[in-house]
Every structure is written in structure tokens, then in C-alpha cells.
């Protein structure tokens, strides 16, 4: 599948900003089943200085600063992506993956092979996913029962989150503690992904946070609205002995070709699409528009 993703973030300030420094995690990273064919970033007003690097997790980080006074900041990225995730999805259902039990997984995790060592850091607490309570462990343990296939348990966990939690935007912010989300059982895709990650880590397995986009299809017979697509987040669990397996608890499905990956990390903190420090006295209003066009 070939896609063009355009993502526009606009900040309108009610008082002039004299300068700003920003960091963007918007350029899609290298990821299995996905290839970045073209990428362009446009900043208005024009950045005085811009640089790109690859971070600890392999994501692209763009840093830029604007030194002229401005009242509006607009960052637009256009990415052309080829996504073919079918073989990955199939492999998740294979015996090699589904046969691994919780006990086997934990045992394999003790090994010191490079990929296991690399994955193990995703068992630890992270900035947004920490101090998880007993309620999260209890919630996880209902699916992760002794002797059970890790894949099955994770799939069930995804389904349960989908059923038990309400999608309510505006109720949570990036810094709402996971225990509160667990208590209230509502939030948005970031929250669901982070709840799932907390559950998996609480039983001692690695899980990471994936940030990206999802293509939404219009109701039959209607034309697709521009900007109806959205940035999205889901999680990936590391099944020792097999590898990383993705789940999308917001849509209750294993991500496929409509899921496009931008970056990943321990939680949202590692991959915020755009953040920065601004110098000025005003407040800002944010507007985000994402449009995903299927080319073929």
C-alpha cells in the first residue's frame, strides 16, 4: 500500500513570540514492513536553523529554532510511505509466536542475547508509566494466567481494554497518571496504549509505545473528509523467543497496512510529535490536521 501522509500542526499565539526552540518526532522511522519513500518538512515562519539526528531508540528527531518574532507557528510534514505489513501479521499467528507460554517467555528473558538485552529495558518503569498500582497488576493477571500463550493473553488484554475503556477525548492530558486512567476507565489512544504497556510490564514482560497514524475510511458512499485522519498510538509486546508483536487497543485489532509508524519509545514522553520552549507572554491555541491519502 502506498500512502501520502500530510500532518499540519499550527500554534496561534495571542501575543508575539520572540523566539522558540522546538523538537519534532514527525519523520517516520525505519520499521518492519514499512518504507519511507519521500519526506518533506515545512516550517512557517522559516526556521533559522534546523538539524536532524537519530535518537537512542532509532527515531528521527528534528530540532529547529525560529528567531524572528511571530504570532503563528505552522509545521507541515508530507511523507510518502510504502506499507506492507501482511507478512508480519501472519507471522504473529504462527506457531512460533503463539506457542510461547508466559513461563517460557520469562525464562527466555533471562538470556543475554543482544535482542533480549535490548528489549529488556522496556520492562522498567518510564516517565509516564510508573508507580503502577496493584489494580493494574490485577487487571493484567486476569489475562496473563499461568501456562497461557503470551500472544493470546496480550490479544485478550487488548480486547478487554477496548471493551472496558471509553474513548473520551479531552478527559486526559499527556501527564494524567496511568492509575487515574485505570480508575476512570476513559481516555484516548495514548492512554489505552500506556495502560496496556503498564499491565504487560507489571507482569515482567517488555512493552513499548508506538506513535503513528491510522487511515480512517469514510462511511460507505461518502467522500472522505480532509483532516479526518489522526495521529494514533498503540503498543507492542516483546515475546521472548519470537519478537515484537503489535496490538491496537483503541480499535481492537492487530495493526495492519492502515497503521503507519512514526516512532517508538518507552511511552509518549520519548516520541511527542512536536514540543518546544517559546519565549513570549501569550497563550497559544493548537490545531492539528492529518490527512492520509491512499495512492494505490
Amino acid at each position, binding site marked *: 500500500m502506498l500512502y501520502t501522509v500530510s500532518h499540519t500542526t499550527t500554534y496561534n499565539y495571542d501575543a508575539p513570540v520572540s523566539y522558540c*526552540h522546538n523538537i519534532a518526532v514527525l519523520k517516520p522511522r525505519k520499521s518492519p514492513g514499512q518504507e519511507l519513500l519521500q519526506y518533506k518538512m515545512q516550517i512557517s515562519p522559516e526556521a*533559522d536553523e534546523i538539524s536532524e539526528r537519530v535518537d537512542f531508540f532509532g527515531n528521527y528527531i528534528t530540532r529547529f529554532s525560529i528567531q524572528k518574532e511571530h504570532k503563528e507557528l505552522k509545521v507541515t510534514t508530507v511523507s510518502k510511505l510504502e506499507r506492507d505489513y501482511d507478512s508480519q501479521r501472519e507471522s504473529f499467528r504462527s506457531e512460533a509466536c503463539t506457542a510461547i507460554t508466559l513461563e517460557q517467555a520469562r525464562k527466555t528473558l533471562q538470556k543475554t542475547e543482544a535482542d533480549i538485552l535490548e528489549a*529488556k*529495558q522496556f520492562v*522498567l518503569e518510564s516517565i509516564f508509566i510508573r508507580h503502577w498500582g496493584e489494580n493494574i497488576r490485577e487487571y493484567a493477571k486476569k489475562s496473563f494466567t499461568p501456562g497461557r500463550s503470551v500472544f493470546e493473553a496480550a490479544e485478550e488484554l487488548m480486547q478487554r481494554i477496548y471493551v472496558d475503556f471509553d474513548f473520551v477525548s479531552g478527559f486526559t492530558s499527556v501527564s494524567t497518571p496511568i492509575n487515574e486512567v485505570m480508575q476512570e476507565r476513559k481516555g484516548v489512544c495514548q492512554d489505552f496504549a500506556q495502560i496496556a504497556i503498564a499491565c504487560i510490564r507489571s507482569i515482567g514482560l517488555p512493552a513499548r509505545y508506538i506513535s503513528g497514524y491510522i487511515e480512517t475510511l469514510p462511511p460507505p458512499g461518502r467522500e472522505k473528509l480532509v483532516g479526518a485522519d489522526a495521529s494514533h498510538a498503540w503498543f507492542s509486546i516483546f515475546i521472548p523467543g519470537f519478537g515484537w508483536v503489535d496490538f491496537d487497543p483503541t480499535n481492537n485489532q492487530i495493526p495492519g497496512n492502515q497503521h503507519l509508524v512514526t516512532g517508538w519509545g518507552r511511552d509518549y514522553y520519548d516520541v511527542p510529535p512536536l*514540543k518546544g520552549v517559546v519565549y513570549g507572554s501569550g497563550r497559544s491555541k493548537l490545531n492539528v490536521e492529518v490527512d492520509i491519502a491512499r495512492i494505490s
Partner: protein
Amino acid sequence: MTVATNTWFTRYFTDNTYDEMFSPDLSVKGNWKELLENFKRIGIDGLNQRQNDIDWLLEENGVTYNVYNDPNGLNRPWNLNVIPFLLHADEWQQIEKGLKQRAELLNLVLKDIYGERRLIKEGVVPHEVIYGHRGFLRQCDKIHYKLDKHLLLYAADLARGSDGRMWVVNDRSQAPSGMGYALENRSTTNRVLSDVFVDMNVRRLSEFFKEFNDLLVEASPEKIENPNIVILTPGSHNETYFEHAYLASFLGYPLVQGNDLVVREGNLYMKSLKGLKRVHVVLRRVDDIFTDPLELREDSHLGVAGLLDVVRRNNVAIVNPIGSGVLENPGLIPFMPAICRFFLNEPLVLPQIASWWCGQEKEKSYVLENLHNLVIKPIDRTNREHIHFGSLMSKAELEKLKNEIQRKPYHFVAQERISFSTAPNFTKGSFEPRNMVARTFTIAGKKGYNVMPGGLVRVAPDRNTLRVSNQRGGTSKDFWIIDPDRTEETPSFNWNRRSAIAVNGLADLPSLTAENLYWAGRYVGRTLVNARFLRMVLKQTNATESVPQEDCSVKLNILYKAVTQMTGTYPGFMEKREDGTYAMSNPLEEIFDVILNRERLGSLAHTMRMFSSSYYSIRNLWSSDMWRVFETIQKIWRNLENEKDLTVTKLIKALNQLITRLIAFMGLIEESIMVEQGLLLYFIGLQLEHSSLTITKCRALLVNKQAGQTEYEILEALLSSHESLNIYRYSYRSFIRVEPVINLMLMDLKYPRSLTFLLGRLQKDIARLPHSQRSDTLTQYEKNVFEAFSKLRLASSESLAMTKNSESYLREELDDLLEELSELLFQTSQSITNTYFNHTYKQSQLVDQNFSI
């Protein structure tokens, strides 16, 4: 030991296992004998005297330590005991070797964990010890530094263990404190105990500080002769702020805060009066996560947005590099022997405190079983409030801790409870044993690491306390390394320091310092003028109390209202308060409040507070005389605040004292700080404040014409509050009349207290500011002052003194002129602020994220 000294130690019994001075058989060890011989010569009274001298010197020099969360803890005096801690050169040699080895090891660890991570990959260190430590900053991964050593400055806390050897108990690596205090301790004992010092061959510190300066210069990513080096402090409320200011003035580098610095085009700049000035090296006292709000802790106002990127581009060197906090990690201790074998293939020289990392099954079960006997620390929070002493915990607390450890075992380390050795402390005329810890400092040099021959020794606040910490009010000692043979005298601190900042003068003054000096000038001026005015009003109240006359109350009403106008404490005497009461019905109560209520904006107490804090934040510019007078001023004020039975007379007396000391203080400022250091800004602030208050005072007292006797008395009060009565009599030799008063107060060209004179001087001073000299056109602030000055020169006192007609009581022309002048001066201040201090752009986050890392 002789009988004479024997009696000194009657209280010196110790049930501790190890004492630094006494052997178990109560004989005195090695060099301590020599020290005691010296003390015997000095005698108890002499020692008392010398301790007093030390206390006095420290107070004189304003050596302080701030204690967090303690309202009285700000600027607490530093304690230094007259008895130094001694270590023989032979023992020191081994410790020095061990410290060099440990510094090198930690340097290699730092390089590895932000580089290849072989320690983790090859199983030497479990990944959780690094990845689970909040000081491991993934943002710093794979940064390439130009310098061979990454760890540039390393501090280790040493304590003597049960085997009689010095053990490492703590590693400090991100922004270790104490070096400045060690230097200050040395300079103090050097003065007070110079005879003993010379007699005992104490190793000097000067070479070390020269090497430290070399380190900073060499750290510059660009090889230029005079790299710009700054010292970054979190500000005057930080616990060790004294030290930051002390090191800044000792080394001759500007002391800056995050606000003083800015990142542009991939470089770091200091905002100075003239503009931006490139910075090459930052010696920082701000912790890792606060150094860059863009990439690290987003709500930090102590750092510089974009700093980490400048580091990545190798355009600035930070001492120590950002990210080095991960080495402050007791989780590493159990693995240090293995790390040492891995990197250096040799054993550790210095023993360490026995530690168990709970991330391992066996260790964890040992810890859980022996919790009550151990000291438990999280691997990444080694400050005292996160340390648990098992022996002091209740059953329930132990249970709770056990659960925490079970939940996140890799996050905890347990350590053996070590019984520190004791060293003698001189307390209230006798010797007491106190538990001690020594902080040592190691720095990277051209040929490996160098260790400070000495350090900062801290002892427990009393004989029963085991733990040692300045936050708990401990005391410190100088640390003497004793050489067996006389060493060659090295001349002290004569290295060639050329501070680029000093060379270029005013233009390179950090703008925050400039702003502080400007406000210091304004506040000191305001304090003085208002104190004089309030004193005058109090005197008038006192004098008229016994003679209640109609005229008097009219006069007092006018003076009371002037108090409100001068201090800006509205509604005050001007109108009724919101609750319907009126200050006029109890004027003394209101005046006391305007003097003493420190929460009230504009009150004398409030102004004093602003004055103190603006002075405190530029204390690196102070001389010790200034500090002494400043302290007296604070004392006068404290006594006044603590006075329970306050009368008008007592208040007048206190104001008298305050005014005299303020004048002394102002005189000292003028001779202690150079114009290039920013004195000019102080003068500008002072002149502006004096001018504005003169205008306010004249508006309050001269604009309305009064009847006969009242007018006379008001004029007299005005002159006396302006300290101008004698000059008036000398100049005019006449009955006090309004026209000559206007002339003297406002128009006199030669009288230093007249407004014309003040504005004339202001005009000259602002012409020396960097931006004033740019072209033939005047800057906005120059235009304002020029206009004000001209307006005054064009006016005549004769017509200013007149009212519109004989029925009118308003001197309209005077009123208009004063209003215009007041507005022009306000604009001048605005314009100076905008041109020179405008680093006040509010910093905010694009996305509000308030959480801790």
C-alpha cells in the same frame, strides 16, 4: 600526654571503635601529637579566642549555607571548627592513588554507557542499574566529546571503616559542591592558625586550584587564548550559593543564571549589556535534568533551552558533561571490582562501603531478612530524605519498605551501617569526639587525574549523631595533609589569570548582574529616602502630641498623606479602606504598619527585603567590609522586628541607626565596585530613584499652597526630611519661603541634592552605557532625561511658586511640571530596562507538560 592536656579530654570518652586522634590504648597518634603540642602552647583560652576569630571571620566574609524548607535557614552562617582534621602524607598517598583510579574508572563507565555499552552487553553491569536510573539521560546517548576525559570533576565522600582504612561511601559527579567551602576553610584557618599551619608542614591547595583553572581553559572546544568561561548557578536560594559566588570571584569568571544565557545558531551566548557574547565553557552548579528545558526537564527555568544541542555540536563544554548524574549510583558499587577488572585489569585500590543491589535474587533475600540492620537507598536518589535507616524504622515502616523493594527490586541498594570514625572537635572549651566524613575532589588534568591535597571535612552536629550533613546543621573542618619534611613554599595564586570579561569591561557585564545592580541602586535609594521621611514624620507626631492645635493637625494630615504617596501604600491616608475604616483615625498604627509590615508592598520592611535580595544576588561583587555593614543593617532591622514594646522614640532611634549604616554602606559600594563591574548601573538606579522620590515629595508637599504658619512648617519638614535645612539656612539666611525652597530642591545647579543636579549627573552616567555611544542620535532614555533636564532648566522658581490667582491654592505650573518630569523618568526606566535587561521574555512550553523526569 602531659597533665595539662590530660584534663582537656575528661569529656573525651568514646565508645566508638575508631578515633582519629587516640589509639585504643589512649595514646595520641602520629601528627596529632604535634597538633596537641601546638594547642598546649596556645592554651584553652587561646583556642577559644581563635575559635571566636574563625567565627568572626566567617561572619565578616558572609560565608553561608542555605537550608531548604527552613524559613530561618537562608544564609545560615557556615561553621568551621578550630581543630583541623589531619592525615599523614603516607596514608594520603594511598588514598590519592585510589581516588585517581576511581575517577578514571567512573570516567570509563561514563564513556561506555553513553557509547558502546559494553558493560551491559558483556554482562559486567546489569542493565537495570543503568536503564533503571533516572540519571541515565537517553538524550545524551552517543554524544562525541573532544576531550579525552569525559568525567572532568569528581568528588568522593570518604569515611573510615571498621578496618581502619578510608572507604568510599558516596560518589558525586554532576555538580559536586564543597570545593569553594574547602578553599574558604583553608583561607580562614590559614589566617587564624598560621603559626600551627607553618609549623606542621601542611600541604598547600594553590597548585590544585591552578590546575582547576587550567582544566576550565583547556575544556574550551575552540583553542583560543581567552575562552569565555562562566559559572552557572541556580540562583541565590540554592543551598551552596555562597560557594558559587565565591568561586566566581576567586577564579574571575562571571556568575550567571540560566536567564543570562541563550542559544543561537548552535552556539551558546551570554546576554551582556552590549549584546550577545559567545560562551565556550560552563562550570555548572545546576543538576543534569534542569540544564535544558527543551530536551530535559521541560518546566526548568534554571537552564538554557537548546543547550544540549550546542553540546552535541561541540560548541561548548559543560563541566561536568550533562548526563554524568548516572554515576551517582550506589547500584554501581557492588559491581565496581568487576568493572575495575574489566577496564583496567587490576583490583580496586580504595575499599567501598559494603552494598547489596536488590536486583539480584540472593542479595535481595539477604536484604529483606536483614533490613533492620541496613541502610537502604534508591539507586538514583542519594540525598538524605530518600535514605532509610532500618534500625530507626518501626515494624510497619519496615513492612512498607519491604513491599516497595519487592515491587521494584532493581531500584534499591542496601548498605552496611558503618560506624564512622570520630575526630576531635573543640566545643565550648573542651574536646569532643564527633563522627566525620571527608569530601575529596579529583579533576582531570593533562596527565591523568589530580587530587586536591585536602578537602572538606564535615562532622556531626553533636556527639550522639551518627549522620553527617550540612543540612542538619553540622560543622566543618579544614583538612590537612601533613608532609614529613618541609615542602618547598609555592607562591599562592599567582597564575596568570586574564579574564576576558574583565578586559572588556561594562559591555560584557551579564545583563542579569546589571539589572541587579540597577535595582540595588533603586532600592537602596528608596530605603534611605523613605526612612528619612518616615523619621521626620514620626518626630513631628511626637512633637505635636502634647500640643493639640488646629494648625498642627492640618500639617500632620498633609505629612501623613505624603507618607502614603512616597511609599505607594494606597489607600493609606489618602482615602478610606475597603472595610470603611480610615487610617487617619489612628495614624500611628498606619505608620507602624508602613514601616514594619513586610508583606505590604511599598512598606519600608518590604523595600528593605527587596534591597537585601538584590544585594544578595550580586554578592560575588562585594567586599568584606560591605558584607559587615550589610549584616549590621540586617541586625538593626531584626532587632526592630523582634521588639515587643515598640514606641515612637524607639522607632526613631532604630531609623537613625539604619540611616547611618545605609550611608556607610553606600559609601562602601562606591569604593568597592568598579564602574566597569557595573557600578554605573547602580548609580543610574540610585539617581533615578532619588529623582523620582524628590518629585513625589515636592508634589505631595509643595503643590498645594497652605496658610501662613502651616506652610512654614511644611516647608521646614520638607527641608529636614531632605537633610537640607542647614544648606537652606546657609544659602538663603532667611525665613523659610516657598520660592527659595523650590529653587534649592529643584533648580539648584550646584547642590547635589537638587533635582537639576541629580538629572545632570544621570545624563552623564547614561551617556556611558554601551548603546548610548553608538551614533549621534540619542537613545530613547537619553532623550527622556535630556527633556526632563531642559524642562527644569527652562522653568523659573518664581512662576513655579505662584498660584493661578489669589483665590487658588493650587500651584498649577509646578504641578504640571512635576507630573511631566515624573512621566519622563518613568519612561527612562522603562527604556533602560527594555534596552539592557530584556531577558524577561516569559519562557513557556509549547505543550504544557508538568511532570518530573
